[in-house]
């Protein structure tokens, strides 16, 4: 622990279940990762894999039926460390957005339809102790400019007067209004057309360079991850099955699931006939399979995989993967190429 740089966020052994009528859904199990200042971490995985649960836990906005059964989340600010799971309501309210902002999926409805954008910026700032409206305005206009909008016009608009892409960018500007250390982006580009997606990505890269915040973004869009992330974590059935630097993940993936995700995406480099989907469907999280949770869908599965759950182990440097058969995966890839 101490040999590493100071992480802004350290998640350790986080397990969350959802209570439901049919039983407890094990949404995330024993998730651990670190987030460093200025780093962009991508959580990728299929829908229902637990990505969003992890991010909601970070701002403590889990649904009412969720229970955190183990783990802790340490957040570091100005050299002092807080456990997010032990914050009082008041501390939590202050933590949200000022320290960690979350840009939700589908910004279409993220703004209160009856208030002008201006009021919503002011609400946010005033809730965190700002009083000078002129200062809020100046900061907001700067940020709106940064996301390449017409600042004056947007600032005095109602949400319904903005297009989807404009709202998404406005929400990004609102997200960094209080200069947070962490910005969580949940599927920041889905439901947008391809040109707007491009613009958002550029804006995000710009902003991160200028404002130096850490990003956690959640996506099933691997190309987006490749473009933006420093670190990529693959989430499967509520567990991080592989985490590492972006290049390692993409060019030397050690987990069959990550590899499956990669080959299921058409890219210009890959030939069309390499494209394949992962057989089967994600496991039932009320009664997950024994051993490695991926084994029912895995081409490499052996008896060991049925019985024992593989640990998340170091391979090279900071690249970790939870698989018994990393070597065989690497072998098979060599044959393919």
């Amino acid at each position, binding site marked *: 622990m101490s040999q590493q740089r100071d992480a802004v966020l350290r998640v350790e052994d986080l397990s969350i279940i959802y209570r439901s009528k049919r039983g407890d859904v094990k949404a995330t199990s024993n998730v651990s990762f670190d987030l460093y200042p200025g780093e962009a971490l991508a959580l990728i995985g299929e829908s229902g894999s637990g990505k969003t649960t992890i991010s909601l836990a970070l701002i403590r906005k889990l649904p009412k039926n969720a229970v955190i059964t183990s783990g802790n989340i340490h957040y570091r600010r100005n050299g002092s460390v807080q456990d997010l799971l032990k914050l009082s309501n008041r501390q939590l309210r*202050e933590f949200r957005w000022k320290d960690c902002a979350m840009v939700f999926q589908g910004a279409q409805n993220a703004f*209160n339809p009856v208030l002008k954008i201006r009021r919503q910026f002011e609400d946010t700032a005033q809730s965190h102790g700002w009083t000078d409206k002129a200062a809020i305005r100046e900061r907001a206009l700067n940020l709106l400019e940064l996301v390449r909008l017409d600042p004056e016009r947007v600032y005095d608009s109602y949400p319904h007067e903005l297009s989807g892409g404009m709202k998404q960018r406005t929400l990004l500007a609102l997200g960094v209004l209080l200069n947070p250390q962490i910005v969580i982006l949940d599927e920041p580009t889905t439901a947008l057309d391809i040109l707007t997606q491009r613009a958002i990505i550029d804006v995000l890269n710009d902003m991160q360079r200028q404002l130096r915040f850490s990003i956690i973004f959640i996506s099933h869009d691997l190309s987006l991850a490749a473009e933006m992330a420093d670190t990529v974590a693959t989430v499967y059935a509520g567990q991080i099955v592989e985490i590492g630097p972006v290049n390692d993940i993409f060019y030397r993936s050690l987990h069959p699931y990550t590899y499956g995700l990669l080959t299921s995406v058409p890219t210009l480099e890959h030939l069309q006939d390499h494209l394949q989907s992962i057989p089967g469907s994600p496991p039932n999280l009320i009664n997950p399979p024994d051993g490695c949770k991926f084994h029912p869908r895995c081409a490499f599965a052996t008896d060991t995989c049925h019985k024992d759950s593989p640990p998340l182990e170091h391979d090279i440097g900071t690249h970790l993967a939870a698989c018994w058969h990393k070597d065989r995966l690497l072998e098979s890839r060599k044959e393919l190429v």
Partner: protein
Amino acid sequence: MTSHSGDIQLDTSGATGPVHAVQRLLTKYPIHKNYNVRVFVQAILTIWAIMSFTFVLVRFMPGNPVDILIEQILTQEGISYQEAYDRVAASFNIDPNASMLDQYLDWFTDLLRLDLGTSITSPGTRVVDEIARFLPWTLFAVGSGLLISFVLGIVLGMMMAYYRDSVLDHTLSLISSFFTGVPNYIWGLLIIIGPGISWRWFDVGAARGTYDPGLTPGLNAAFIASVCEHALLPIITYVLATLGGWMLSMKSSTTSVLNDDYVNVAEARGLKDRRIITSYVGRNAALPLFTQLSISVGFVLGSGVVIEEIFVYWGFGHYLFASIVVRDYTAIQGAVLVLTTAIVLSNLFADLTYGLLDPRVRISGEK
């Protein structure tokens, strides 16, 4: 828009009549597309239609009030048919010698000048004066009752939504079913029987009328206190009878707003709870209720007939009922017209103010 102006061009090539002038003007300034203008014109047309309907009813229907009255006066007083006819016609503002169209126009202009004719049973009393005397009391009682129940319903409904499926929610929704189900006059009777007669919290007899006799109307404390005291029972009744509806509407509206993204985002933005509850949840959830408010104004005004009879509150409903009992046709006609107009106007008011409350309507002109 483009196709529309195309139509106009086809129609108006070379034409110069007033209709075409209007059409051209509308093409240039499309005020008929403006939400407020449309709503306003619709209201005017409705009032006009109902006034005309009343005219036809009074004048042409078999067994219409004019014929009935003439019959009555003939049998009672033994004067000539013409005399009786003239007297009735005068009460109704009808000039029997004019053509039908002129009669209609006369009658209509009289209405526009707020001349509703004179009372038949107490000759010489102008109906409009009588209505002006009784209506304010009803407006006061109904208005304050609705306002109180609206505010209360919004608060309780939001509580139900926030504590969904709790004991509080279940209790309140059972109570709201009681409030909605039990007719308002039944509430009135229950108030009289329970607190009034059995528990003697107040004196039922003393609550009659609109204020204590012997007081000078005006802005003095004794008068205002007396007015409120007399209106209290009707107001409580209106509140009880309408509260359940507001609670339930507000609950379902709030429940859907609570699922909206912007509330979730507002919480993630670390806004203070009070700010979220008032400006984010409350304001959006209450929006659809304002339209319902206008509809219920009409309903409650109408139901005032029974409530005011039960509490012997001398308001508009009492006046209408008294007129019906003595068959004062001009008074009934005037009262119905005023009531209808009041309802149309309250709908109009709601439609127009809705635009102020919801910016989306203001811009697009559509609900």
